[in-house]
């Protein structure tokens, strides 16, 4: 998605890319299906995973991930 800080123009937060990665996803590799006893000729798989911290950073415009784990009450009470 477009970087929430600069809206796609490129900034320090998105390392000038204008984009930020929000989640990884893709079709499951046929090898993986085979190993799990699923016939890749019959079935396909789609996998995706979201990092909760990343979403929180975007949603609340938090610029430092460490804040999430410091538990400073001045931070916590904002939510």
């Amino acid at each position: 998605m477009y970087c929430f800080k600069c809206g796609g123009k490129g900034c320090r937060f998105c390392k000038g890319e204008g984009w930020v990665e929000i989640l990884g996803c893709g079709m499951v590799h046929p090898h993986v299906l085979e190993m799990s006893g699923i016939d890749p000729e019959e079935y396909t798989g789609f996998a995706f995973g979201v990092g909760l911290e990343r979403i929180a950073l975007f949603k609340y415009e938090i610029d430092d991930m460490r804040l999430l784990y410091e538990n400073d009450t001045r931070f916590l009470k904002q939510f």
Partner: protein
Amino acid sequence: MNSSMSWTKAYVPDLDCTAQEYMDAMTLSGTKVEGYTELDKNLDKIIVGKINKIEKHPDADKLVICQVQIDEAGSEVQIVTGAANVKEGDKVPVVLDGGHVASSHKDGESENGFKIKKGKLRGVDSFGMMCSIEELGSNCDMYPDAAEDGIYILSDNPEYADAPVGSDAVELLGLHDVVFEYEVTSNRVDCFGQIGIAREVAATFRKDLVLPEVTVTGNGEDINDYVSVEVQAPELCSRYTARVVKNIKIAPSPEWMQRRLASVGIRPINNIVDITNYVMEEYAQPMHAYDLDKLADHKIIVRKAKKDEPFMTLDGQERVLDDTMLVICDGEKPVGVAGIMGGENSKITDDVTTMLFEAATFDGTNIRKSGKKLGMRTDAQAKFEKGLDPNNAIDAMNRACQLIEELGAGEVVGGVVDVYPVKKEPITITYNVDKINALLGTDIDEDTMVAYFEKLELTVDREKKEVLVPTWRQDLERLADLAEEVARFFGYDNIPMTLPSGSATAGGLSEKMQHENMARDIVEAYGFMEGMTFSFESPKVYDKLLLPADDVLRKSIAIMNPLGEDYSVMRTSAVGGMLTSLATNYNRRNQNVRLYELANVYLPKALPLTELPQEQMQLTLGMYGEGDFFTMKGVVESLMQRMGLKKAAQYDPKAGKSFLHPGRQAKVIYEGCEVAYLGEVHPEVLDNFSIGQKAYIAVVNMKQLSELANFDVKYVGIPKFPAMTRDISLTMKKEVLAGDIEETIRTKGGKLIESVTLFDIYEGAQLTQGYKSMAYKIVFRAPNRTLKDEEVGKAMDKIIRALEEKDIVLRS
């Protein structure tokens, strides 16, 4: 991996896009561009100037006044400089009035560069500035012909001597360029080379790819008269190619080569080293050069090293090899660690006359393991460990020899030694347009797919529906891989969006989650805020918590590949994290802090692990500031009550927690189960965490609490008869526990007792030293009649007598 726009355009001449367009398109087609640098970002109005005249500055010993010609017509500007290395007739880069440079002599580099304006230096007008290489945004490593400390004298370099006065100096120095940085995945070894990147560029932008034409090289001699090669470990060396170059003339390489190497961050050295690096960059095939005269018997043997074989690599470090590592040897001794680094004993020096060029491919896993054991990581190794294509090696070799001839760096001996026992053949994959479309959710026709394949230099047989995959694309194995290629060039963002369909099921929270949410609501009502700490913990925390050496909590699971010592075990308790969080708040002067965390602890059943550990959900509460032990106890009681644990719980002061104050801790027992423990933090532990005031901790076993939770309510008739209430105030020794008193009152009072409530505690001057006073409200009621005074009086007597036996007396 880096590439420059100008180098890529050498292979894709029709490429015409901005840096941003390039980055977006390449990233979307799967070659992720991390970022780019425009080398001329801060360079403006910089031309080639010629110093026609130099005079002394009338008022400054260190300054001179130059008349600098700035166009072919002969216009001059006056520039005052402090540089000592200029002389009349020199051609130099000149930034004119109003122009920009990347860095300043005085202030160093700046993100937005520096504007140059006309001004006076010690009273003499100056209309611009002559530049050093640093002011142009580069350095002497990348431009070895530039002066170390002074103005870049262009005319000292024969290639620049004829540059027209007034022409663009930035252009001349190859700085109108953009450098891109990529994140290449390890299954795309081909993209670690400029040609591989260019192939992707050509396919992405639908332009023609023009690869360098490698010509036949070599004189009439036969390499076999110069050297012989024997591969004794073919399982680790799939191909070994060698060629010989004689009559070597070491010299600087031409500017075009230096500029391309510099653009991707490689420092130009001399023609031989530069050609080796250039070909490695171009083909993603590392090469190595040996001084042939230093190779005993003019022989190369590729074998495994002997156990503890000593070897000095060309960086001058003494290494000890083992018998799993692959070495390149001459007739007597090792001369290189295969794929990692050559030896000091055979390295090329300036007086080399004949050399052996090596381009080989090795087993990637073996190279990675050897590098790890030796603690080395070279550029060559980084490529080899991904497993290189043996068919690419010979192209790289011949390209290097072609460049040797073109640059006049030496005379290439005819023929190639090529030990290649098992040739790697391209594979064939059958494609099926419908299956690819089904996999992608698209509707792409065959012509389009075939066009994508052909742009990637896959050979397509439309009759047989087959694709022949060149060996450099080791990542393409089956239909799904072809589908990926189609998706990349069709554009992931062009794949239509669809919603998944199927039968729906009812959702909801599990009982465990519901209980956790209740616990959250309850403790939050008491002002506790939810925090979060890492499940990875430092083993040092056990000492900070004063845990005895044999404490079961010390038995934690070690992480195989930890982020660092501080995150090296799975926590067995969340108390360490809680105290750290309290300390952070204390340190930042936050007052009245109340935190909780609902998180798993990881309790191994045996170490080393024989089965998965027990993951136990715990509610950890921590606080300092307002409130005390009883506040915390109240929160735990309230939690239990609201979860339906309605009977009285026992508080056992022998909780045995080393990190809690020995006299102010308790474990909470309900129906024989330990549900929680709580207490004041031990003063020494407070010190260990640098918390400067009293703090309290409670830990609730959520699994236990959840099992005991009971939300069944059965109606009990509202009392028809009145209650009688008695208040008593008692004095006793301080050690006496409230739980014991209540227990005595309840048992002695019998069935008539409805409730017992502690409503006051007093310790102080009114009482004997070591004693305290506690006051209780006792409510008596019978369900079927109105109680008489005497009945209650009798019960009270029994209670008081029983208490007196325990040295608990009515307060007088």
